[in-house]
């Protein structure tokens, strides 16, 4: 019970003036403590960490290279090839490991870019209102109306299917939800006294937005940035699956699945390796996002008590 009161208090006054700094930190500690107690989220952190570490470390020790196509076609799973080999004689396990690396790399890049674009645009629109707000809102509407899968596919085809092109293009068409959420929150926060105080003491737009507004939206931003990673994993996989995303020599789990899924009936191991990793990544990130949302939400205690 006490914890709930404390976190509610911390959320309300956190970062409002320099005096409240220790309290702001205690809110952070509160969130962390609540998050650490969230079993599902913590379990997800462990699984996700294992997947990330595995995709980085395992290839160093794994005997087969992803590029090595010298094996026989369609070898069944064995100690030598845990997930068998593909039609062209590549080791499937090596493909899955490399696909995981690229999928994560793309997803994290996309999430970072969308969060930066979305938060900057949303905070400016919500704080400045007036012309800036309508301009940014129309821009958001414009991007929401264009079917992103087609636009992304065209751009990827023109600019090449390297992983960073795919990441950039996906980010270009994914920042809108974060911008909208940030705008709404910035609007309500800018009514508060601490923003007025900051403005009265002579802080410019940049300072108010990035020193006062954005730090107070850290909960919303963290949660949505986390969920953006999960959405980016799925968006990239979908684009690559229909063959319009990442192209060889780069790869991704979507591409690995797309190349081999037709074998699922007779040789399910060629499908289920990449499938399991992809679903686990998406599921764990969503769980972590949910745990973070609960941890940041001061009302959470009340509902459960």
């Amino acid at each position, binding site marked *: 019970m006490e914890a709930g009161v404390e976190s509610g208090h911390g959320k309300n006054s956190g970062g409002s003036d320099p005096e409240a700094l220790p309290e702001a930190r205690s809110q952070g500690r509160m969130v962390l403590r609540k998050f650490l107690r969230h079993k599902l989220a913590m379990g997800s952190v462990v699984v996700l960490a294992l997947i990330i570490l595995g995709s980085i470390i395992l290839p160093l020790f794994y005997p087969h290279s992803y590029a090595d196509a010298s094996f026989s076609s369609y070898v069944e799973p064995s100690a030598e090839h845990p997930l068998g080999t593909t039609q062209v004689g590549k080791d499937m396990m090596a493909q899955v490991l490399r696909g995981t690396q690229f999928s994560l790399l793309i997803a994290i890049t996309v999430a970072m870019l969308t969060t930066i674009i979305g938060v900057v645009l949303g905070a400016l629109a919500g704080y400045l209102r007036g012309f800036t707000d309508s301009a940014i809102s*129309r821009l958001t*509407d*414009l991007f*929401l*109306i*264009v*079917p*992103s*899968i*087609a*636009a992304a*596919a*065209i*751009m990827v*085809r*023109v600019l090449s299917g390297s992983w960073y092109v795919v990441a950039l293009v996906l980010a270009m068409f994914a920042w809108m*939800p974060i911008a909208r959420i940030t705008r709404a929150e910035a609007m309500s926060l800018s009514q508060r006294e601490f923003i007025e105080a900051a403005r009265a003491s002579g802080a410019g737009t940049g300072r108010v937005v990035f020193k006062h507004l954005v730090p107070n939206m850290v909960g919303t931003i963290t949660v949505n940035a986390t969920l953006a990673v*999960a959405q980016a994993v*799925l968006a990239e*996989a*979908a684009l690559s*699956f*229909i*063959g*319009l995303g990442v192209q060889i020599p780069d790869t991704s789990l*979507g591409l690995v*699945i*797309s190349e081999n*899924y037709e074998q*699922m*009936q007779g040789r*399910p191991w060629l*499908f289920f390796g990449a*499938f399991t990793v*992809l*679903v686990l990544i*998406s*599921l764990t*990130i*969503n*769980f972590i996002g*949910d745990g973070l949302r609960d941890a940041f939400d001061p009302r959470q205690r009340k*509902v459960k008590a």
Partner: protein
Amino acid sequence: MNLVVYILRRLAISIPILFVGSFLVFCMVAAAGDPLGELRTQPGVSQESIDQLSHQLGLDMGIVPRYFDWLGGFLTGDWGISIAQGSNMQPVFPKIMSAFEVTIQLILAAEIIALLLGVAVGVLAAVKQYTPIDYIATTMAFIFFSMPIFCVAIVLKMYGIDLNVMINDMGWDSWLGNPFLKTTSPESLSGDGFFDSIIGYIGGLLLPTLSIMFISFAAYSRFQRSSMLETMNMDYVRTAQAKGISQGRVIMRHAFRNALIPVTTLFSVNFVTVVTGAIITERVFAWNGMGSVLVEAVNKNDPNTLMGWIVVIAVAVVVANLIADLVYGILDPRIRVG
């Protein structure tokens, strides 16, 4: 009356956005390279026919006149020609319309089921919060929400094939058809007579519809659950309970209707995701819908088809938003009056 004004105002915002959006996309498609590049290097294609094609595509015009030329044609039903089949040109309009019909059929079936099921399960989970029903519903929703749609489609296809084998082994194929569940594009859904037609529709649509449905359903039920929980904690619901109205009536009359409002917003936000999902599902089940048209058009750099495709989907998004606004207005009297 006010609702009409409200919708007209929404439309007035959408049309300029569609206009600007289509121009920007037109520029992007134009910047995607020379659509006739491949044809030019082919032997046996005369300069004359390339010039003629180039003129037909408007490549000899500047970008702005070319856009207005395209827009004029587009609004009058002449969407230009497709060069996807090389020099064998087809008009874009019928091609996209028949593909869109396939896709929208899939989307409508999936969305209706997803909405009904999602709302029902969401309400049930909220009313029975922290019971096994709630946990099962929440977990299922979470898993489907995190699933890539093509993985759902692939797994369903796999089980569909197994089920077909089972049906044949049981000897049911004589009246369910062989194969009952179509795992590749069905030539025609209807059969001879009423019964066969129904079987044909179910067998043909079931697997792809389910794939899209699961993903949407997950989003709807999660959203409905949390919005229902929020309304159930509202003061006016407690007042209704305190007045002695039966719980069922409180849930349906007082809480449910208001809890539907956020889901309406989700419907319009979700629509683009569903279209994308349908495109991918079509690829798995080898349907000739918008998905295959898009892949072909992108790979062949077919400008008119790309433009037609993008604008049709954009208009569909606008229409979906309008429907959501309309429902929103019906559910929330403040919007009608205000």
